[in-house]
């Protein structure tokens, strides 16, 4: 078995119009910039994929990564907890113009919905949002004298993930705080596409330090000198 692929076209095959797409990262930490930009390139060349539902903690920053995807007109809806950033212009303009949908989800609920999606748990109860506008329309139940809100699992057609090390079987490690949502998303998507800073042979990653086991990974592409979204932002890069 070898999950590595040689190029972006192969890595991103199967991401089609109208799909839901989880994208790892919290702000710039863990954002798979090269995969995102390759998807934008494909859209510019072929007009697809468009009408995507994006799932990320945020909604892009500046003019790179998710913000560039929104700018390009590929995104119909964001599911996120915090669509603000140092430069949230891309999302804000489209949102205020009514050109993009928004489902706001408390951050821990977002993480747990994704975890549940990957774990085969269709719904769960959380104390977060009880009694607030965010809980409107959701079932509520009392357990041991306290109220909880029912939330549903969240799954996606595909996930884009940035890892540090990957072996050819898809076992992954992450760099510092960059793992954030990625291990959850890798399990919750049908098609999990990983960019790794380095690909190694099976056995070269100590099983004790594997964070995402290869069973959750579909394809891996090596991006040796991956860019960091925050660094691109600070350089004033605009991807188009």
């Amino acid at each position, binding site marked *: 078995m070898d999950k590595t692929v040689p190029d972006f076209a192969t890595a991103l095959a199967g991401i089609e119009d109208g799909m839901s797409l989880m994208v790892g990262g919290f702000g710039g930490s863990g954002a798979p910039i090269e995969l995102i930009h390759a998807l934008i390139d494909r859209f510019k060349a072929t007009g697809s994929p468009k009408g995507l539902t994006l799932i990320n903690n945020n909604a892009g920053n500046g003019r790179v990564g998710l913000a560039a995807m929104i700018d390009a007109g590929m995104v119909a809806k964001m599911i996120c907890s915090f669509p603000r950033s140092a430069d949230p212009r891309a999302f804000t303009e489209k949102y205020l113009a009514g050109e993009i949908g928004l489902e706001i989800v408390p951050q*821990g609920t977002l993480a747990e919905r994704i975890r549940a999606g990957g774990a085969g748990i269709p719904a769960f109860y959380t104390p977060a949002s009880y*009694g607030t506008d965010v809980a409107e329309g959701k079932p509520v139940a009392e357990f041991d004298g306290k109220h909880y809100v029912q939330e549903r699992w969240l799954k996606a057609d595909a996930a884009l993930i940035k890892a540090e090390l990957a072996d050819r079987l898809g076992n992954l490690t992450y760099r510092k705080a960059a793992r954030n*949502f*990625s291990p959850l998303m890798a399990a919750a998507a049908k098609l999990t596409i990983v960019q790794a800073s380095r690909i190694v042979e099976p056995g070269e990653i100590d099983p004790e330090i594997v964070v995402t086991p290869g069973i959750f990974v579909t394809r891996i592409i090596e991006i040796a000198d991956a860019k960091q979204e925050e660094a691109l932002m600070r350089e004033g890069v605009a991807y188009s």
Partner: protein
Amino acid sequence: MSTKLSNAQIAWRAAQDIEDGAYVNLGIGFPEMVAKFQPPGRQAIFHTENGVLNFGEAPPEGEEDWDLINAGKKAITLKPGAAFFHHADSFAMVRGGHLDVAILGAYEVAENGDLANWSTGPKGVPAVGGAMDLVHGAKRVAVITDHVTKDGRPKLLKACTLPLTGIGCVTRVYTSLAVIDIENARFVLREKLPGMSVDELQSVTGAELVLPDTIGDLVAPEL
């Protein structure tokens, strides 16, 4: 003496109540200042929602590693004994009752402990982040805030007027004028600025203050 505490002084006062070894989450912005004012000899372990325990101060400019940030997307450093974890584990720490203290900012706090701190109404782009999770689970949920809004209206109220972050969740409020506990759905005055009368404080508070036998002086060093 100034007529109210500065933000730094409010943060200093809140820091005095954090025990040695406590696990603490500080909200984005103003609450982050609390970390600077830990009393000598005490060391809290700070948690950030994006998946780090035991982080330290910001690195010097130019030495940032942007894979190593806090929930406010600011660069951080690690202390010895730090740990990384994914988001579901991070919020297990939050909702699962593992944090000792969460300190948040507020637009409004109600006498029953309701908190409004995520939305100022239907205009603009809503953004909630981790606040709705943080208000549940931490053993103490404290608020640090100016006592009144920029235009002088009370922020401590009978009932919140803005969209709620959580109901009945706040246990203590540190303001620019007072330290107030929320007990049995009432504001109980614990400390006030020594130069301020109870009547003056009551006049800028939107719900009745319960007055215990002893009310301490709220005194912070110049910072």
